[in-house]
């Protein structure tokens, strides 16, 4: 019980209030009426299966190329402005798509949509993570809040799909493109009203070249970051595979056409339901992680075994739901291991890696599915799901006390990091006795940490003596507590 209280501490009022405009903006940005009727519209303006493939290729070429550069730009410049640019690209793409009367202009619109996805990728996650860090001092509540943002987003997807279908039925598919424009325009206003985090900008300015080098080095050389990136990318690949190839199972089992609508709605809603469940589950608990790690490959395995339509749909929905939860978990682990000024860049790297893995995966899947049936190809999903399970559970297994496996320098490094996080608790007398003993023992034996604590003491002393500019005091209290400024 006390564990539950510790895992979900009270929400500071500024955190909830501050994230409102972001949730509004993400919701409006997700209200794209044309998505549900896109294929219909494309057929109307002359697309054939071959030109649909061409469009997918053009789209796939834009997104991975732009993701990391746009993430680095978000880290160096402003994440809010990147989201405004993303909305601008969505606006331009919807307009161009709606005006299209032939294949080439629509492909151009799809490439502009690719710019939107690349700018979007990893940016909202990074914003939410840093806002939580700024308002609570830790990332504990990240999963809760990103879960809520995902819930809003998927609610908007579902509502716009339904509304788009109705609108296209009443008027025309073309009109859904123009009807989406006002929602995106208001999203831009909401993004502009959002008080964005500043953690990524507080560090001293770094030259672009070394910033880019540092971002790539963090992704490639840091073993922990690398492992979490692979987990997140595999989860992305697997979710994409379920959404792209899942309907093939229904086709193979000759499911009635009427079933596809509810099936698709259930699949899409897992993103939001997963976000909601994540905010209720404590993913730091080993038991919860073990259930996720066991159930994910089991759900994928079921797809290779069963011929019952109901079981196939249930397995796919469960798999998509588990992946939605794991993707939030993987995002938190990734952000925990990366400093603020590299956050969006590294986070976008996951998207690129996922695309790169999905390409050969989908070719192999398609080949086996055509030659031996979709059930046989389901083994690819099972293999990827097993890998996800292993990567999810690996850090938990490693945390078990294994004195022989951990070298002295490794444990020292760990102790120094822990000490840095506990200095204020120590100085405030808030450490439990056994932790206080450990703290003092380490301090006595580590010159670096002793010097660090001394410098923190000097900093506190200097702050106490300093005559800080008077402007920062009233401004600071006025900005987050209007009640006080009236007194």
């Amino acid at each position: 019980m006390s564990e539950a209280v510790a895992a979900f501490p009270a929400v500071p009022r500024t955190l909830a209030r501050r994230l409102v405009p972001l949730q509004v903006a993400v919701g409006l940005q997700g209200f794209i009426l044309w998505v549900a009727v896109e294929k219909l519209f494309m057929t109307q303006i002359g697309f054939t299966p071959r030109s649909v493939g061409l469009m997918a290729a053009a789209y796939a070429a834009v997104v991975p190329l732009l993701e990391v550069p746009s993430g680095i730009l978000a880290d160096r410049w402003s994440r809010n402005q990147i989201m405004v640019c993303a909305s601008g690209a969505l606006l331009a793409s919807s307009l161009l798509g709606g005006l299209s009367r032939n294949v080439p202009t629509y492909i151009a619109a799809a490439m502009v949509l690719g710019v939107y996805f690349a700018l979007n990728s990893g940016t909202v996650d990074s914003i939410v993570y840093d806002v939580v860090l700024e308002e609570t001092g830790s990332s504990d509540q990240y999963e809760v809040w990103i879960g809520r943002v995902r819930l809003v987003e998927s609610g908007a997807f579902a509502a716009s799909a339904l509304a788009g279908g109705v609108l296209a039925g009443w008027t025309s598919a073309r009109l859904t493109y123009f009807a989406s424009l006002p929602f995106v325009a208001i999203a831009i206003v909401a993004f502009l009203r959002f008080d964005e985090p500043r953690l990524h900008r507080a560090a001293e300015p770094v030259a672009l070249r070394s910033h880019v080098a540092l971002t790539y080095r963090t992704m490639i050389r840091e073993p922990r970051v690398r492992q979490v990136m692979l987990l997140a990318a595999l989860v992305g690949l697997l979710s994409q595979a379920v959404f792209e190839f899942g309907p093939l199972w229904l086709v193979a089992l000759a499911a009635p056409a009427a079933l596809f609508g509810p099936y698709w709605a259930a699949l899409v809603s897992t993103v939001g339901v997963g976000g909601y469940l994540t905010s209720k589950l404590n993913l730091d608990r080993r038991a919860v992680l073990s259930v996720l790690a066991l159930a994910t490959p089991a759900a994928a395995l079921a797809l290779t075994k069963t011929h019952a339509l109901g079981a196939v749909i249930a397995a796919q929905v469960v798999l998509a739901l588990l992946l939605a939860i794991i993707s939030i978990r993987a995002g938190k682990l990734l952000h925990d291991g990366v400093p603020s000024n590299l956050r969006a860049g590294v986070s976008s790297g996951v998207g690129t890696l996922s695309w790169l893995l999905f390409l050969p995966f989908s070719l192999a899947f398609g080949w086996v599915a055509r030659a031996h049936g979709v059930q046989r190809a389901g083994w690819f999903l099972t293999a990827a799901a097993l890998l996800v399970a292993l990567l999810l559970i690996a850090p938990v297994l490693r945390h078990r006390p294994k004195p022989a496996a951990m070298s002295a320098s490794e444990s020292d490094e760990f102790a120094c990091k822990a000490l840095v996080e506990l200095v204020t608790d120590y100085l405030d007398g808030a450490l439990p006795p056994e932790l206080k003993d450990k703290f003092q023992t380490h301090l006595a034996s580590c010159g670096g940490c002793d010097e660090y604590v001394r410098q923190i003491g000097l900093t506190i002393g200097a702050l106490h003596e300093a005559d800080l500019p008077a402007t920062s005091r009233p401004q600071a209290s006025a900005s987050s507590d209007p009640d006080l400024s009236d007194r």
Partner: protein
Amino acid sequence: MLDPADPNVGDTLAAAVEELPATWREVIIARDALGHDAVEVGERLGLTPRQQRAILNRARARVRERLARRLTPEADR
């Protein structure tokens, strides 16, 4: 050793505090510059004691880093 009357130290300190996120700035000014009580600061800002300490710890670490980088030619950490 660290003389706040030294204009270099004072300016660096002010700049370091100024560039902190609003909530961090408010906590560190209330606790370290004005010497307010931890419980009172936490209640005023709607923070749990743990959140208040976590924010103060991060804010102090940032300010220390800025001071160290400004005052020593080579940053020690």
